[in-house]
C-alpha cells in the first residue's frame, strides 16, 4: 500500500508509545509535535492542518501524555474537551428520534460514548480509546462528570457488542440481522474492558477473538489481538510467533501498523502504557 507523508496523530501516538522515552531524539520530536498541534479548545486534530474543532485522536494524545505529568495544562484542557464531547445521540432530541422513528439499527441511545468527530454518533473505537484515556485521569483532579461518562461509555460498549461476541464499528444488528465483528475493533474494545473480564459480554468477546485471531494474517488485526488477549491474561505466544514469522516490517506501508506491531511484540512493556 502507498504511503502518506502527512503527519497524522494516530501513527505519531502509537510510535511514541512503541519507541518510549529511550529513543530520545525521535521521541522528543514526536512529543513536541503533539504539544504544538493541540487545538485552542483543548482537543487534538486528526492530522497536521486539520480543522480545529477536535477529533477522536484527543483520547490518543492523552494516552501518550499520561506519563508526562509536567504537561498539566495541556492534559487538563484535553480531558475537559474529551468530557464535553459526546455522541450526538446523547441529546434528548436525537435520542427520541432513535427510539421512535429510526429503529433499524438496534442500539440503546441512552448509552452513549464518543464520536470520531463532533456532531456525529458514538462508535466503538473512539469510545474505547476515550475510556482508556480516562483511566489515566488523575483522581486528584476531580473533573466533573468523569465517572458518569466513563460508566456511560462502558455501558455503550456493552450495548453494541455483537450477538456472538466481539465488536465491529458499532452496528451489531441492522434490520434484524446480526453483523459480523471485526478483530481490531474487538481487540481495542477489549483493551478498554481490561478490568472487566467477569462480564459475560467480555468473556464471549474474548472467546470470539481467541477463536478467530489465530487464522489472521493482517499485521494490524494480529497485533491488536495479541495486545487485547495479553491484557486479559491469555497466552499470546502463538500469536506473537505468527506475527514474527508472517510479517516483514519492511513490507508494512503505514507507520500506525508498524508501531502497533512493535507494541504487540513488546506487550509486557507497552500494555501499562495503553491500558493502565
Amino acid at each position: 500500500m502507498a504511503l502518506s507523508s502527512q503527519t497524522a496523530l494516530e501513527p505519531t501516538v502509537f510510535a511514541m508509545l512503541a519507541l518510549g522515552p529511550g529513543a530520545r531524539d525521535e521521541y522528543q520530536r514526536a512529543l513536541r509535535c503533539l504539544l504544538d498541534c493541540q487545538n485552542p479548545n483543548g482537543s487534538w486534530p486528526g492530522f497536521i492542518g486539520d480543522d480545529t474543532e477536535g477529533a477522536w485522536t484527543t483520547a490518543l494524545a492523552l494516552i501518550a501524555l499520561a506519563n508526562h505529568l509536567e504537561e498539566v495544562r495541556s492534559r487538563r484542557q484535553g480531558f475537559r474537551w474529551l468530557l464535553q464531547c459526546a455522541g450526538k445521540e446523547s441529546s434528548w432530541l436525537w435520542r427520541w428520534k432513535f427510539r421512535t422513528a429510526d429503529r433499524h439499527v438496534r442500539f440503546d441511545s441512552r448509552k452513549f460514548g464518543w464520536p470520531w468527530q463532533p456532531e456525529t454518533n458514538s462508535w466503538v473505537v473512539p469510545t474505547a480509546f476515550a475510556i482508556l484515556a480516562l483511566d489515566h485521569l488523575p483522581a486528584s483532579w476531580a473533573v466533573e462528570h468523569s465517572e458518569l461518562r466513563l460508566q456511560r461509555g462502558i455501558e455503550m460498549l456493552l450495548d453494541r457488542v455483537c450477538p456472538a461476541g466481539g465488536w465491529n464499528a458499532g452496528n451489531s444488528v441492522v434490520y434484524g440481522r446480526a453483523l459480523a465483528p471485526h478483530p481490531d475493533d474487538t481487540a481495542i474494545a477489549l483493551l478498554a474492558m481490561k478490568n472487566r473480564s467477569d462480564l459475560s459480554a467480555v468473556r464471549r468477546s474474548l472467546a470470539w477473538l481467541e477463536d478467530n485471531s489465530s487464522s489472521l494474517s493482517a499485521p494490524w488485526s494480529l497485533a491488536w489481538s495479541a495486545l487485547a488477549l495479553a491484557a486479559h491474561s491469555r497466552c499470546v505466544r502463538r500469536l506473537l510467533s505468527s506475527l514474527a514469522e508472517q510479517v516483514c516490517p519492511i513490507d508494512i506501508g503505514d507507520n500506525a501498523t508498524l508501531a502497533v506491531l512493535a507494541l504487540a511484540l513488546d506487550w509486557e512493556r507497552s500494555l501499562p502504557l495503553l491500558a493502565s
Partner: protein
Amino acid sequence: MSVSITRRELLVGGAAVATGVSASAPFFRPRYRIDRRPRRSRVALLRLEDYTRPMDELLYQGLCLFPLKVQGKTVLLKPNLVDYIPGNAINTHQRLVVASAEAFRRLGARKVVVGEGAGHQRDTQLVLSESSYEQELTLARIPFVDLNRDEVQRRPLDASYTDLDYLWLPRTVLESDFIVSMPKVKAHHWSGVTLSMKNMFGVVPGQKYGWPKNILHWRGIHQSILDICATVPIHFVIADGVMAMEGDGPLNGSPRPLRTVVLADDPVAADATCARLMGFEPDRIPHIRESSRFLGNSSPALIDQAGEVLCRPEVPFQVVPEFQHIRADEKQSLLEGSEAEPASRMDAVTRRCRVG
C-alpha cells in the same frame, strides 16, 4: 365594484412580497454550481456469465466502444471494497478490477492505481488479503492506495446539498487525471441502491471522518452523494453486475446474478441503466433523479446504448420495506427512445469505434 388601495397598503403589501421572495429564494436556487451533463451519454452492457471466464479481451473491446483519451494519464480505479463475508457478493470482483487495469494500460494510461477507503473496516490489509485482492493486484503489479489514510487536502464543494462548505479528500483522488468508479451492483438499505455515485463515499477519508463516515449520514446520504460527485468527477464507470446483490445490501443481501458488466461515460446514465437492470425506476431514487439535473443523463432518450439489450427483470430486485416504491410496477420495454444496439451488432460497433 371598485377597489381602492391606499399608498400605505401598497407599501406594506410590496414589502411583504419582497420579504417572501427573498426568504424563499434560497429554496429555489440550484444547489449545484456546475453543469456536467453531456449532450448524449453512452452505455455498453457486456455479457459475462461468471468471474471464471476470460474477461481481459471483453473489457478491452468494451472500452474501445468509447472514445476514451487516457494516453499518458493517471487512472484511478475505485472499486467497492467493503468487507469480506464468505459467499456474499459484497465487493467488486478482484478479477474485474485487474482486467480493467490491464485494459487501461493497453489504452496507453501512464499509471493505473486502485484506491479505496472502506466504510466500516479499519484494517484495509485484512479486507485486501481475505478478498484475494492483495494476491491479484500484486501479481499484476497494480499499486493500491488506502484512501482512508492517504494524505488529504481541503477541497471546496461544487454543490451545497449537505451545507458542508468543503471536504478533506485524498491527494490520490485529487491528483488523478481519470477516475473510474467500479461499483458492485447492489440494493442498499439506506440509499436504495449502491452504484457508481454511492460508491464515491469511499473517497472520503476515514482518518478525518471516521469509520463509518458518519457525518455523511447525518448530512443526508443522497445529499452527500450529490456533493461528492459534483466535486470529484467520475470520468468513467465499470459496474460489476455479474453477481449482484438484492435485499438487505450492502452487506447482508442475497447474491443475484445479472451476468452483466455495465460500462458508461456518464455516472448518471450508468446508475439509471443499472437501476433499470435491477427492475427499479431510476427517477424514484433521489440522488439519481437530482443528479440528472446537472451531472449526467438518466433518460433513455439521451443514452446511446451498445452491447447487450437492456431488459428489466421479470421480478425486480428485492429491497428493504422503505424502498419498495423504487421497484418498477410492471415489466416495461426500455428501448423506447434509446438507440440500443443488439448484442449481435457489438462487433460492428467495436469496429466502427476503432475506425472512428
